[in-house]
C-alpha cells in the first residue's frame, strides 16, 4: 500500500488508560505520530481504518520477554519473537539479557538493537545484565549500557543471590536512576526443585520449591532498598508472601514495584499434573492460595505491570523427563485474552487492566510509549473484546509452541497491531 501521511482510526472504542479515556473516538495519525484523539477533521487523502465494534488501545508493552537472539536462535529469534508480539497486540518488548553472549556489554546492546531494527517488527528495548555473564559477581557498565539503549538491568533466569553484590548494584544504579529487575528465587532453597512445593509435588514425587524461596529474597532486597534507595522491581512475582512484602515497601514509600505473569494469575500447580513440561517455568506455578493473593494484588493496584516472561523453547528442550525439561513458557500471543479474564472475572476494569500492559510498564522503563498522547508514536492495538477462540499450541505465530494454555477457550482477539502507524499484524492475513 502507498504510504500516505495521514491515517484515521475511525469509530472505535478508544481506551487510553494514561488519560482515563474510554469513549468512542477517532485517532488521527500523521507520519506515524499520533496527531489527535477525539473528533479531528479528516485531512485530504487520509487513509481510513474502520474500527467500529473494536477496542482501540495503545499497543501493549511487555516488559519481560526472552527473544533468545543472539545465541539461541534455535529457540527463537528477534524476528520470530517480535512476530509473536505483533500477533498478540504487543508493540514494545523489553528483551532479557540471558542470551549468548549475555547482554552485559554495550556492544551486545548495539547488536540486539541493530538486529531488531533490521529483522524486528515491534519495538525492542534491551535489558542489560546486572552482573557480567549473569555470574552474580562483577557489576556491568550500567552507565554505558544505558547510553547504548538499555532500559533496565536484570540477571533474569538467575538471581543476584549475593547480598553484598545486590547492595552495590542498587547503590551504583542510583547514579543513573536505573531500574533493577530481580528474578527473586533463593538458589539454595530452589535446590533442584522443579515445581511448587505442596500437595501436587508430593503426589507426583517431584522435588518442590517452597514459596519462601521468593519471599525471602524479596524481603532481603527490600531491606537493601531501604539501605540504598535504588529502584527495585520484582520480576514475575508469584507468591502471597512476596506480594505482601512489596505492598509493605510501597506503603513506606520505597521505590519498589512488581509485575505478574498471566500464567501465575490464571493457572496453579495442578497444571503440572501429568508431568506437562509446558507447565514448567521459574518461578513455578503456585497454589490456589497464592493465585488468589495475586488476584487481590491486581485488584488493589500493587502491580505495575502484567508481563509475560515469554520464553520460547525448541521442542527438544521440552520433550524430555519433567525434571530435565527447560523452564519457560511462551506468552505474547495469549497476554491480552488471558489478562482480559481479569476484566470478565470482575477483578479489575478494562482500563486498569490495559494500564498494566501499556503506560505503567512504559513509564517504569522510561520509554515514550503506551499512551495515546499527541506527539507519541502511533503504536496501537485494535481488538474485538468478545470474540472467542481456542488457544492451539500448533498454531502460534512465533517459532515456539510451549504454551501452558493449549486448548483453553479465551475471549478477546487482536484484529490489527500498528507500530508507528504501520500495520504489523492483521487477523486472518
Amino acid at each position, binding site marked *: 500500500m502507498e504510504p500516505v501521511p495521514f491515517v484515521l482510526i475511525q469509530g472505535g472504542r478508544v481506551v487510553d488508560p494514561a488519560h482515563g479515556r474510554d469513549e468512542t473516538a477517532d485517532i488521527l495519525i500523521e507520519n506515524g505520530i499520533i496527531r489527535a484523539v477525539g473528533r479531528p477533521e479528516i485531512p485530504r487523502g487520509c487513509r481510513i481504518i474502520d474500527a467500529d465494534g473494536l477496542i482501540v488501545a495503545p499497543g501493549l508493552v511487555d516488559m519481560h520477554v526472552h527473544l533468545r537472539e543472539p545465541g539461541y536462535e534455535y529457540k527463537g529469534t528477534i524476528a520470530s519473537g517480535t512476530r509473536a508480539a505483533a500477533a498478540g497486540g504487543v508493540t514494545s518488548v523489553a528483551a532479557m539479557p540471558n542470551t549468548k553472549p549475555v547482554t552485559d556489554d554495550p556492544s551486545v546492546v548495539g547488536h540486539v538493537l541493530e538486529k531488531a531494527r533490521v529483522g524486528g517488527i515491534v519495538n525492542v528495548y534491551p535489558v542489560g545484565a546486572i552482573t557480567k555473564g549473569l555470574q552474580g559477581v562483577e557489576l556491568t557498565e550500567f552507565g554505558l549500557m544505558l547510553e547504548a539503549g538499555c532500559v533496565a538491568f536484570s540477571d533474569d533466569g538467575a538471581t543476584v543471590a549475593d547480598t553484598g553484590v545486590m547492595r552495590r548494584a542498587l547503590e551504583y544504579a542510583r547514579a543513573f536512576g536505573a531500574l533493577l529487575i530481580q528474578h527473586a528465587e533463593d538458589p539454595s532453597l530452589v535446590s533442584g526443585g522443579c515445581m511448587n512445593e505442596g*500437595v501436587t509435588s508430593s503426589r507426583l*514425587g517431584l*522435588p518442590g520449591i517452597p514459596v519462601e524461596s521468593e519471599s525471602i529474597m524479596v524481603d532481603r532486597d527490600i531491606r537493601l532498598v531501604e539501605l540504598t534507595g535504588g529502584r527495585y522491581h520484582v520480576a514475575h512475582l508469584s507468591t502471597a508472601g512476596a506480594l505482601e512484602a512489596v505492598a509493605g515497601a510501597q506503603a513506606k514509600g520505597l521505590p519498589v514495584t512488581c509485575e505478574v505473569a498471566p500464567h501465575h494469575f490464571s493457572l496453579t500447580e495442578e497444571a503440572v499434573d501429568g*508431568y506437562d513440561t509446558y507447565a514448567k517455568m521459574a518461578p513455578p506455578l503456585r497454589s490456589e492460595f497464592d493465585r488468589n493473593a495475586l488476584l487481590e494484588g491486581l485488584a488493589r493496584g500493587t502491580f505495575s505491570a502484567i508481563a509475560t516472561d515469554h520464553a520460547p523453547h525448541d521442542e527438544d528442550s521440552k520433550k*524430555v523427563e519433567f*525434571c530435565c525439561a527447560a523452564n519457560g513458557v511462551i506468552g505474547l500471543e495469549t497476554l491480552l485474552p488471558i489478562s482480559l479474564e481479569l476484566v470478565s472475572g470482575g477483578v479489575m476494569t478494562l482500563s486498569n487492566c490495559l494500564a498494566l500492559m501499556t503506560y505503567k510498564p512504559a513509564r517504569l522503563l522510561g520509554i515514550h510509549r503506551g499512551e495515546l498522547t499527541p506527539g507519541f508514536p502511533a503504536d496501537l492495538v485494535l481488538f474485538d473484546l468478545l470474540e472467542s477462540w481456542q488457544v492451539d499450541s500448533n498454531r502460534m505465530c512465533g517459532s515456539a509452541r510451549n504454551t501452558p494454555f493449549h486448548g483453553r477457550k479465551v475471549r478477546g482477539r487482536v484484529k490489527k497491531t500498528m507500530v508507528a502507524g504501520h500495520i504489523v499484524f492483521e487477523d486472518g492475513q
Partner: protein
Amino acid sequence: MVRAMKSNIWNRKHLLSMRGIGQEEILSILDTAASFREVNHRDIKKVPTLRGKTIINLFYENSTRTRTSFELAGKRMSADVINMSVASSSVKKGETLIDTLATLQAMNPDVVVVRHSESGAQEFLARHLNAAIINAGDGRHAHPTQALLDILTIHDHLPIMGREDFRGLKVAICGDILHSRVARSNAQGLATMGAEVRFVGPPTLMPAKVEEAFNVKVFHRMDEGIEGVNVVMMLRLQQERMTKGYVPSVREYFHYWGLTRKRLALASETAIVMHPGPMNRGVEIASEVADDLERSVILEQVANGLAIRMAVLYRLCTPGSRS
C-alpha cells in the same frame, strides 16, 4: 485363590502408578498372582502362558531384585525377555529417553518394563509412544508392582491378625518417605484397600503437605508412629542423605527411627515387619528384627513379587484377559 472373585476384565494398557486403581482391580490382580504362585513351586517352573510374547526390561537405574523379578516372571511364563540396563544403553551416547523407547517400540515388544530415576518418566513415555509400559519405579513417584506385592503379602497375613480384610488395618510406613516411591504407591494402594496408613519419619524426610496429598497420618516420633500398628514397613535410608543435611548421622537416625526389637514391641503383638529391600542393617533396621522369621516377612515379599509381576505381565500381554 485369594478369594472368590467375579471375573474381572483388565483393560488397562499400562501400569504407571497406583492412582486410580480401584479395590476390585487390586483384588483381581491378587487373585491372578495367587494362581501363578503355584507355578513357582513346581519342579518345572514354566508355563506356556506368554509364549511368543516379548518383554523388554529397560532399566535406567541400578536394580537387582526388581529386574530379576520381572525377568524371571516373564521367563516362567515362556515370554522372550530382553534386559537393557543403563551401563550398556545408548544413554551414554546422548540418546534421549524417548528416542531409546521409540527404537525399542519399533521392534514391537508386547510390554516394556521401565525403571527411571526421574519422576514421571514413564508417564511421559506413555503419552508420546504406543508401547505398553509397566512402571518398575520412577524417581520418588511410583512403584506400583511393589505396592501390589506388599498388599498381597499383607493380605496373606490377615488371618493371623484376626482380620478378614484391610478395613481399619494400621500400617506404619517408616523412614525416608520424601525420596520413596514405595511409600507413595503403598499409601495409595493401601488407602484404596481401606487401611489406615501412617507415615513415620523425621520432618526433613517428609514430603510437603503429605497428609493432604496421601490421606495419611504423620508421626515424627517412631515410638508413637508404630504404637499398635499391624504392619511396620521400613524404608531404605541412603547414605547420601547424611551428607545432604537431611539427617546428621547414622547413629542418630538409628537411635530415633531404627526398628529394634524393643521398639517393635510397641506395635500389635501380631504385627509383621516388611522392607522393600535392599536393607541397610543397623541403619533403619536391626538384624535381630530383620532375621526374626516370626515377624519379618521380607523374603515372602520377594516371593510374592515374582507372582505379582507374573500377574501384571500376563494382564498387560493379553488384553481383555480374565482373572
